Structure formats: C-alpha cells, structure tokens
C-alpha cells in the first residue's frame, strides 16, 4: 500500500525536479494520443495513396531524380530531370512509400507500443511477484528452485529468448474492435486494433524473473520484521501475512521496477517488430524496418519519425522512473533497455 509518507516524498521531489515534470508531461501526452488515436490522427493510418507517396515532412523538400525517355528524331533519348517534391500541409510528417500519412501511423503506433508495454509488464508482474513473494517468504526448496531457474533464464538475453519463443510459437494476434469507431464517434479510421498477443505473452515471459527477484528480495527482508512475526503469533495465517504485511511494504520497489520495465518492453517490442516478429503492421518498429529501404535514396523520415517517437516515449518513462527512484529510493536499478 502506498502510504502518506511515500506520497509526500513523491510530491516534494516532483516540485523540485524539472525532469520529473517533463517526464510526466511527455508520458501524459503519449498516453492521451494513444487512447484517442482515432480523434487525433488526421488520416486513416492504413490508407494508401500512391499519388502522394514519399512526401517529406513540413519544412523539408526532397529532390528526386526522374528519368523520362522520349523519341526525338527517331532516337531514344533519356532525360534526367531533378524534380523537387514539396511537403504538403495535410501530411505534416510526410508520407511513407505507399503514401500513408506518417503522423497518423506514428499516432497509432503509440497504441501498440503502450499496450504491449503495459500488458507485458502486468503479465510479468502477475507471474513474477507472487512467485517471488512465495519463494522469499517460505525460503527453502521453493526459493532454491526459483533462484536456479532465474539464473538459467537470465543466461539468455531477452531479445534472443523472445525471438526464439516467437519463432517457435508463431505470431498470433488478436483484432480488438476500436471502441470509438464501434460507437460511431469517428469514421474513416481502422475498425479494429490489432493486439500482438504472442508478443505480449513472450515479453512477459522473458521479463517476469526481474519481478520475481525483486519481490523475493523484499519478502526475504520483510519476513524477518518483528511485525510479521507478531502478526503470525497473533493468529494471522500465511496468506494474510503475505498479503497484508509483506506485499504492501514491498510495493514501492515493485512499482519502480514496473516503470523501468514498461520502457524496456517498449524497446523490446520495437526490436521485435523491426525484425518482423510482431503480429501487427501498425507499430513503430515495423515502420522503421519499412523505412530502412528508403534510406539509401535519402527519404529519412519514414524510418526517422517512428524512431523519434520511440525515443520521446521512452525518455518520458525513464524520467518518471528516475523520479520515482529518487523519491522512494528503494535501491534498485532495473534492467533498462536491452534492445
């Protein structure tokens, strides 16, 4: 449980820290944009328009070489003309190779990243925290088994383990109806949101050990607290002791870890979709891999914009993580990125 003292620390640290405010602002913006994507996005992110493909972002112009051939006096002449492609107001971040609006794609990409980040972290926490609490509380064989298993699974880098599991299990995805579109509040936007189910499960599986380790550490130290002994001596059973006296006092380091893990999982998800191991085609990592093909011809924004979006979101979350860590000082450092 979050006590009053914790909240006091958080608010005073927040008041003093510019970076904490910046982080919260960034994350709030990204979260709002992700939730209200159908209202915010100017275009349908999946709508192709080959007449307006590869438009640069506002403020940039792109010089394209166009080769035309025509018959002049019975001879085939090729003429190379430098054509300037101007940015268009309706596509402020430009368009991709198929003429899809980059701004809309970046906005919808935020949904994928955040949902995978949050669901993956929740999944990891729901598995890891109970296992860690039980292992730390009971110690003995359960604990030994957990720690050995943690050693083994930490021998594989998260990305390697994740692509191996996705490679074995396939890339299942679940189409979820977009509530705003279903209610008829907006039209012309995608009717479903594709949730990359396997990715959520896999990032949870490769990250639960971190939660188990931190919960175990907390349980190990809290179980020896006098008030835990006292509660037991006064008749509280094990589940009551763990849930009432151990878990609530272990929750702050778990929250800090969870924050760091959301950032790490967003980076992991973008790596996976960059490598083509995601189940959705509407994500930042996927767009970066598409944009990679246009790098050699100089169209940097197709890969550049989604990358900037990742950077901004992850910076925001990491700043919040720093704020929580400074305010609560649970003495942990999460894994960080690990892409």
């Amino acid at each position: 449980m979050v006590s009053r003292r914790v909240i006091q620390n958080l608010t005073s640290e927040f008041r003093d820290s510019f970076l904490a405010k910046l982080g919260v602002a960034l994350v709030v913006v990204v979260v709002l944009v992700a939730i209200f994507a159908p209202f915010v996005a100017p275009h349908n992110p999946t709508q192709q328009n080959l007449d307006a493909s590869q438009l640069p972002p506002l403020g940039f112009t792109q010089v394209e070489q166009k080769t035309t051939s025509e018959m002049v006096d019975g001879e085939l002449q090729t003429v190379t003309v430098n054509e300037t492609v101007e940015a268009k107001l309706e596509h402020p971040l430009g368009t991709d190779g198929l003429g899809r609006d980059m701004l809309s794609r970046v906005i919808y990409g935020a949904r994928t990243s955040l949902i995978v980040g949050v669901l993956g972290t929740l999944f990891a926490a729901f598995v890891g925290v109970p296992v860690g609490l039980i292992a730390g509380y009971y110690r003995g064989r359960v604990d030994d088994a957990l720690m050995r298993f943690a050693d083994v699974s930490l021998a594989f880098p998260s990305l390697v383990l994740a692509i191996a599991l996705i490679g074995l299990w396939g890339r299942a995805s679940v189409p979820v109806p977009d509530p705003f579109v279903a209610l008829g509040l907006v039209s012309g936007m995608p009717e479903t949101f594709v949730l990359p189910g396997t990715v959520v499960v896999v990032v949870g599986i490769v990250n639960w050990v971190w939660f188990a380790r931190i919960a175990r550490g907390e349980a190990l130290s809290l179980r020896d607290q006098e008030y835990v002994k006292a509660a037991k001596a006064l008749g509280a059973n094990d589940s009551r002791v763990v849930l009432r006296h151990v878990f609530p006092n272990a929750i702050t380091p778990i929250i800090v870890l969870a924050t760091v893990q959301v950032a790490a999982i967003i980076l992991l998800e973008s790596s996976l979709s960059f490598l083509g191991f995601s189940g959705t085609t509407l994500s930042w990592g996927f767009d970066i891999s598409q944009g990679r093909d246009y790098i050699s011809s100089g169209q940097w924004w197709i890969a550049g914009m989604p990358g900037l979006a990742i950077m901004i979101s992850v910076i925001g979350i990491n700043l919040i993580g720093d704020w929580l860590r400074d305010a609560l000082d649970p003495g942990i450092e999460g894994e960080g990125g690990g892409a």
Partner: protein
Amino acid sequence: MTDPDLDDDVLVAVRDLSTRFFTEEGQVNAVESVSFEIRDNEVLGIVGESGSGKSVTALSIIDLVESPGRITQGEVWYRDAELAEEFRDTNASVVGDHLDLRTVPERVRGSLRGSSFSTIFQDPMSSLNPSVTVGEQIAEAVEVQRRASANPRRTRSRTAGYGLGQMIVDAVVPSRSYTSEESHARAVELLEQVGIPDPADRAEEYPHQFSGGMLQRAMIAQALAGEPDVLIADEPTTALDVTIQAQILDLLRDLQTEEGTSVVMITHDLGVIARMCDRVGVMYAGEIVERGRLEDVFDAPVHPYTQGLLGSIPDLEDPAPRLQPIEGNVPSLLDSEMPEGCYFADRCPKAMQDCLEPIAEYDAQSGSPEHAVQCVLARQEFDPALALHEDGDAEVVADE
C-alpha cells in the same frame, strides 16, 4: 506416552521439549529437554543470558520456530476441555482435560495462536506494520479472532467469508473492508484499557507517530485482542527507558490480575523477574538449570549459575562489592562442541570432577518438589579437593 501427571490448575505443561537448528555450521541445540508448567493466574519468568534459548522456547510453545529450526521432541500439554473432548478418540494424546498440542494437526495449533496464546515482542518500534494505522492493526487482530470463533473449530479457516481475491484487492487498494465497525470499537476499547489517552484519536495514527512506550502499550492491546489464556512477553521492556519499563510492567501485572491471564515473562533482567513473577525458570545453554517458586530460587539458589546471576544484580544500597559478572560467555550450542557433562562447568567456580559426567535428573530442593535443580551440588557439598578450576575463585559467587 508418558504420564504427564498434571494438576488441575496447570494451564500449559511443557515436557522434555527440544528444539534444534540445522544450520550449515552444524546442529545447534537451542532448547534441550526443557520442562516447566504455566499455572492459572500466575506469572512465570524465564530468565537467562541472550543466546540461552529463552525466545526459542517461547516460539516453540506457539509452534512458530522457523526453518532451519525444528522441534525435535517433547510435549506441550494444554488444558482445553472442548478440544480435549474433540480429540479424545483420535491419535492425539489426551489426559483428562489436557491434550498434547504436539500430537494434534498443525491447523489446530495455528488456531490457538492469538486466541489462546498471545505474544508481545521485544522491539515495539518494529512490531507494528509501519504502513497501517495502529487502530486498524488492532482491529484486524480482533477481526481475525472474531471470524475464527464464528466458525466451528474443525473447519476453522482464517479467511472465512473473506476470499483470497478480496485480500489481494485490499493489499493493493487501502481499504477497511476486512475489519468491521465493531472490531474498530473494540480496538479503541483495548487501547483505552492499556492506558493510551485519547484512544479514538490515537487509533487513527501510524506507528511512527507513537512513542516507544505507547507502542508497547499498543502491542499489548493487540495481543489482548483475542482474549488469550496465556500472554507470552518476550523481553517486553528491554527496548524501553527505565521509567517506561516500570509502567509497562505495572500494566502487565494489572492486566494479569484483572483478566486472570497467565503471563510468561521472558527476560534477561532479574529485576523484572523479582518484580513480576510468581515462579521462575533459569535457562542456560538451552536447558532450564533451576526452577521453582520465586522466593525459593531467589532466597536459596543452588545452581552456581543462578547464584552468579543473582550476584550480578546491582544492589542499590551497596553497589560496588556485589557486582560480580560471570566470566566467560554462553557456549555456542553447536551440538558437536557441547560437552558431555554440565554445560556450565567451564565457567563454573564450583565445578568438580563429577561435573564432567553426564548429568542426572533434576533434584528437589528447599523441601519443595517445585524447586528443582540440575546440578551436582544439589546432591553433594562443594569439595575444593575435587575442584576443576584451581584458581579457586569460588568466592566470586556470593554465598548467601
């Protein structure tokens, strides 16, 4: 099954209880063949240096010895007519109204914690959960017992009517849904009973807003929540200032008189024993070396260790000459390092050749069967010719 030979006024009888810790360094005999009784309406003191096994003895009674520790033998008889009836025709040992708690299922022993046996720990500052208000914690202890007693003992479940899911929700979201209005009212009553002013307001405060003495009172209130038959107080005053110590001891004494609760007072402080107890057991290296009525043991101590302890109490009127600490330290209790004979022999100023032999049974002293001593000296006078330690510092021990 041995015949426990129990009087009617014996509430708890511990017989031959041993608790061992199985550590990487080896087996530690923390409690060794300890026997004593807790009678109705009395205060039993258990005194000894730190590391002598007092606290483990207390934990052994309520079956809360933690791994790697384990109770390896012994009986803990408890008088409860209802329970005895329930288990009379089972594998459990039952004699009259007494039954041996070591032979009943763990579930039953668990159900007695809080309701029959309550415990107060040494450090009040850390004995309350820092993130829950004092009143809420006491109300919870009340509620745990209320819910338990609402169910037949056989099917007792501490979570009755309160599922695991609800508990998880409560753990995350601060809420009061576990406790009821009645248990909160009872918590305030208990706080008042232990002498906390403005109990209704103080109940809303967090432990860090309480002073040490107030916290120990709150701890006692929490321990009384289940209206226990036995209150085990493990060094309840050690962490407190001297003036507060006296107040807490008076409070315990008063409660004992008013409520008729038996108290087990565990302490290293003979002053506390002298002030509080009706009977006393002296522990050394996991054994009770001397036990009996307070006046018998204090006026006519037989065991040189008891004599030494009494000698080390500062006498207010004549402090300097009597202050004689016992030399040496409590042995390690490692099984492999324990001597065959008396454990105290290497520190004992009156050790003799016979002390190196395995020790026999307890001997009655002072003409009272209750005053029992485990020492060669209970049978024979000290003979300097047979002394083990040649420096002859027998005079160190005050000879009454």
